[in-house]
Every structure is written in structure tokens, then in C-alpha cells.
């Protein structure tokens, strides 16, 4: 088990290093000189050179990458030249807001999706199965902003039940639903599609497995077989899918937060991209990658703990 954990941890670190190459590389694609961009066209070449030297942007690429990456690891994320604030508190605060929204969507939809997926598999080939599968398929297809604007027009504009733009909720649970439900639904649609599909596939496989037949022939009650033998085994692939969806969720957050003007990391990513605020943009993208990798690592651990074949090996 400890070898398994170490191997997973190693792969996670390698992935993050490659991501940091991608992020750093993309920011280097930006044409023009950094000092010139900050100082503007009227600064003298000498001033620009001096600023480049102070910022370290005149150094060779590997050196700059190393400085940038080691500063990030040490927690020095720099100051946003556009917003003129420290990047780290800004990004972490926005991340917290996004996690609230993301967790809200996950908590509401994951158990429901798994339940519907299992129900579809238990009714394999019947109407209920077809309805759940086709619904899930259509839900996956719909871009979040399409679902989002339809929800806003119906429930915020016409019926007035929800605000058209969402704030971070206070401690009141009613406020949580008022602020977060509408932006959460578009993401819940997509999550439902993927998770229910996987739970269904896992359950179908487990229902056909030899251990299930043995359990039924042994005379165990059906309900017991379904929940103890079938669903338990069906959860293994489902866990992997849920963790992969954490990555998707952040992408969905960019869209949903923009649509609902919710102050999360997704909105900050887009804002800093539009405002050419590279310092903030890089920190946001790296944070998103870290969240995804940590979620995957936790899922691998859960997989290992639940699956004796991995646990013992």
C-alpha cells in the first residue's frame, strides 16, 4: 500500500511540474518586452532595461522558470501589476469562494447521480434506464451558459425567486440556496450526466459478476446483494469519475461565475486573462491544476482503500 501511495504521489508531482511548464510557456508567448509593457511607450530604453534587470526578465529562460517556480513554492506569488494587490491572498480568497460553490454543487448532485445510475442499471434496458441515460447524455451536452441563461430568465427574471447575480452566502442556510442554487444547477447537469453514466456502467458490470451470482445462489436477500455486493464494487470506477469531474468543475466555474458575476477563481482567471495580468493568471491556473491533482490523489487513495486487490499489493 505504501508503495502504491508513493508511486501515485510521484506521478502527481511529475504532472504538476509539466503543468507548470505549460503555464510558464504560455505566458512567454506574449509578444513584447515585460518592462516595456509596464512602463509604456514613452519610457526610455535605459529605464526599460533597468526594470527588466530588476524584475529578472532579462535572464535566460531556464533561470526565469526556476525563479518563478521556486518563488511560487515558497509562497511568494508576487504583486499583480494591474490590480496592484498581493496575488496570493487574492487568489486564495477567490478559491475559497469557488470551493464553496463547487462543494455545494457536488454535495447536492453526487449522491443523487449515483442513486439514479444504480436505478438505471437495476432496470437495465427498461424505460427508466432509457430515460435516465438519454437525460444524462443530453445534460452532458449542454454548455453551462446555455442552461444558466435559461434558468436566469425563468427563475430570476420572470419568477423573481433568485437574484440574477450571486454573492458569497452568509451563514443563513436559506441564503445558501438563494445565492448558490441557480449557478450550481448548470454544473450539476453535467456532473449528473457523467456520474450517473459511470455508476450505471459499474453496476451493470457488477451485476454480471460471478460473486453476485454466488451471493444470489447462496440465498442472500436481493436488497442485501444489491447494496453490499453490487453497489460497493460499482463505486470503484465511480470514484475515479467523480475525481476527474473536479477538474471539469473548475472549468465550469469559469463560465458559471462569469455568467452569475460570482467572485470565484474562475471569474478571476478570465478577468486576469482579459486584463493581461499574467502574475495573477499564472497563479490561478497553477492553483486550479493543484486542486485537480490533489482531488485525483485522494481518489487514488480511496480507490486503494476500497479495493483489496490494490490495498494488499
Amino acid at each position: 500500500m505504501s508503495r502504491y501511495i508513493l508511486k501515485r504521489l510521484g506521478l502527481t508531482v511529475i504532472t504538476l511540474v509539466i503543468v507548470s511548464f505549460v503555464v510558464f510557456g504560455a505566458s512567454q508567448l506574449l509578444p513584447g518586452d515585460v518592462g516595456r509593457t509596464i512602463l509604456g511607450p514613452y519610457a526610455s530604453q535605459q529605464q526599460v532595461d533597468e526594470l527588466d534587470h530588476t524584475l529578472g526578465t532579462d535572464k535566460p529562460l531556464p533561470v526565469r522558470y526556476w525563479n518563478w517556480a521556486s518563488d511560487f513554492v515558497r509562497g511568494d506569488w508576487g504583486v499583480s501589476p494591474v490590480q496592484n494587490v498581493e496575488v496570493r491572498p487574492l487568489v486564495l480568497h477567490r478559491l475559497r469562494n469557488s470551493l464553496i460553490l463547487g462543494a455545494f454543487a457536488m454535495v447536492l448532485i453526487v449522491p443523487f447521480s449515483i442513486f439514479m445510475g444504480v436505478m438505471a442499471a437495476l432496470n437495465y434496458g427498461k424505460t427508466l434506464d432509457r430515460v435516465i441515460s438519454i437525460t444524462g447524455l443530453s445534460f452532458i451536452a449542454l454548455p453551462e451558459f446555455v442552461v444558466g441563461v435559461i434558468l436566469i430568465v425563468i427563475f430570476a427574471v420572470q419568477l423573481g425567486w433568485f437574484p440574477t447575480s450571486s454573492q458569497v452566502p452568509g451563514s443563513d442556510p436559506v441564503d445558501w440556496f438563494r445565492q448558490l442554487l441557480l449557478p450550481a444547477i448548470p454544473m450539476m447537469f453535467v456532473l449528473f450526466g457523467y456520474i450517473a453514466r459511470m455508476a450505471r456502467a459499474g453496476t451493470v458490470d457488477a451485476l454480471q459478476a460471478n460473486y453476485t451470482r454466488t451471493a444470489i445462489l447462496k440465498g442472500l436477500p436481493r436488497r442485501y446483494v444489491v447494496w453490499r455486493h453490487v453497489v460497493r464494487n460499482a463505486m470503484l470506477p465511480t470514484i475515479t469519475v467523480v475525481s476527474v469531474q473536479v477538474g471539469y468543475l473548475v472549468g465550469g466555474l469559469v463560465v458559471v461565475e462569469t455568467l452569475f458575476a460570482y467572485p470565484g477563481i474562475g471569474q478571476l482567471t478570465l478577468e486576469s486573462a482579459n486584463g493581461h495580468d499574467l502574475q495573477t493568471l499564472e497563479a490561478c491556473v497553477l492553483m486550479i491544476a493543484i486542486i485537480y491533482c490533489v482531488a485525483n490523489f485522494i481518489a487514488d487513495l480511496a480507490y486503494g482503500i476500497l479495493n483489496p486487490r490494490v490495498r494488499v499489493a
Partner: protein
Amino acid sequence: MASVEGSDVQIQPPAAPVLDVRAERRRRRRELLRALVRSKTFVVGAVILAFWVLDAIFWRAIVPHDPLAVGPVDTLKAPGGAHWFGTDNLGRDVFSRVLAGAATVLVIAPAATALGLVGGTAVGLVTGFYRGWVDDVVSRIVDAFLALPLIVIAVLVLASLGRDTRNIVLVIGIIFTPLIGRTVRSAVLVEREREYVAAARLRGERGIRIMVWEILPNITGPIMVEATVRLAYAIFTAATLSFLGLGLQDPSPDWGLQIANGRAYMQVAWWMVIFPAAALATLVVGVNLVADGLKRVVEE
């Protein structure tokens, strides 16, 4: 099938050889088509997709108004009368703009998918066929790409490269390359163990010839399925990017852009966002139904 060790003792009639490979291929294609026509999912999806493709080609002939013509006196008119879907904040006819808006997304998404398909097939063939270190390196890069949502990579790259249609096609196509490559690779891994590949090797065929002439024709099924799934995803992504303001700019009638522009007027003119949203929804659901139907038929 007789095992290799036992083949010299057992006397078995040789399997009937397929004399005409082309006729066999034609027969299979006919069977596939027949199965597709029987699939309700596929037919419904194909009808929706065909509608939008025809619309994207012929919209100029059917729009009642010029989708770009502004009407200062007719701004924010509710649906009805001369404007079935109402007018937008500049007095442009929403119905005509919805019909005209299919064209942009139906050019960008297939172009991006084609790019990813060519790159991904090449990557998948090479990594699956040779395996070894090339395979390991590519797998790691795929993992890194998967660690970032497609939208986030696109935002990052488009912010650096500049926002235009060509860059959107490039970004989506390049990100699709490793993803499609992975699917092709797993199909190649199965095929490379088959006898016909061993036979080609014994004949002394070179690696590249085996990949392109022997393996590739045998994995067109999974590649076709992957292509339609990716096409749906490309439409999703391209529309999202234009909604985020990273793609086409006003006055283009692109659906994502129309919805983004209509956001400010949602309180007074719901028709500005609902109709393009509904159009986009039918298109993506249609392509997904096609993909799902195709997948079921090919996997059977």
C-alpha cells in the same frame, strides 16, 4: 482457433479465405449503415444535425432579414409580427441572427476536430505501435493536459496569442491531439497483437507501412466514434469561448456571442438569449445523440 503448438497434430480445414477484401469491406459498411438507420438515437440526432448543417450552408437564402442590419426604431421588440423571435438592442432581427449563427460554430468545431483527429491518429499510431519511452512521455503529457480544464488552457493561450478564430481552432485542435491519441493508442494496442500484423512483419513491411496500411483501416470504427464525441465537445467549447468573449466579436451573429451580448438585456428582452440558447442546445444534443448511436452500433 488452433493453438500454435497443437497445429501440427490437429488436422483442421483452413478457414475460408476472404478472396475479395474490398467486397468484404463494402459488405461491412452496408451492415453498419443498416444498423445505424435502425438506431432511433442516431436517426433523431442525424436529423437535427442535418437541419443545422443545411441551415449553416443556405441561411442566406432563407433569412427574412439581414442578420447584421440595425434598425434604430425597432430595438428590443418582443417576438411577433415581422420579427418572429423579436429584435435585439440594435434592432437586428433575432430570428435571422439565430439562423445565420450556426455557420460560425459549424466551421470552427469541425475544423478543430479535424486538426485534433489528424494529430491524434498520428500520435496514437506511433505510441501504440512502438510503445517504450515515447509512449511513457506522451502519457505523462496527456495527464498534464487533463489536469487543466480545456476552458482554462484556452483562456491562458488565447490571452497570450490573441483572440481570433484561427487561434481557437488551433487551441482546441492541439488539446484534442493527445486526448484522441490516447483512444487511438488503446485501439492500436489491441490490433498490434493480431496475426495480420505479425504476417506483415514477417513479409518485412516497414513500421510506417504496417501502421498506415494494415492497422489504420482496422481501427476506423473507434476513430469515427471518437471523432463524433470530440465534435460535440468542440461545439461546446467553441460556443463557450465566444460566450466568454474570447472568440468572434460583434457584429457576428455567433450564438455564444449573441447570448453574451443579450445578458445585459435579460431583464427586458429574454428573447435575445433564449432563442440562440435553444438553438445551441438542439445542436449539441443532436451531435451527442449521433455520437451515442454510432458508439452503440460500432461496439456491437
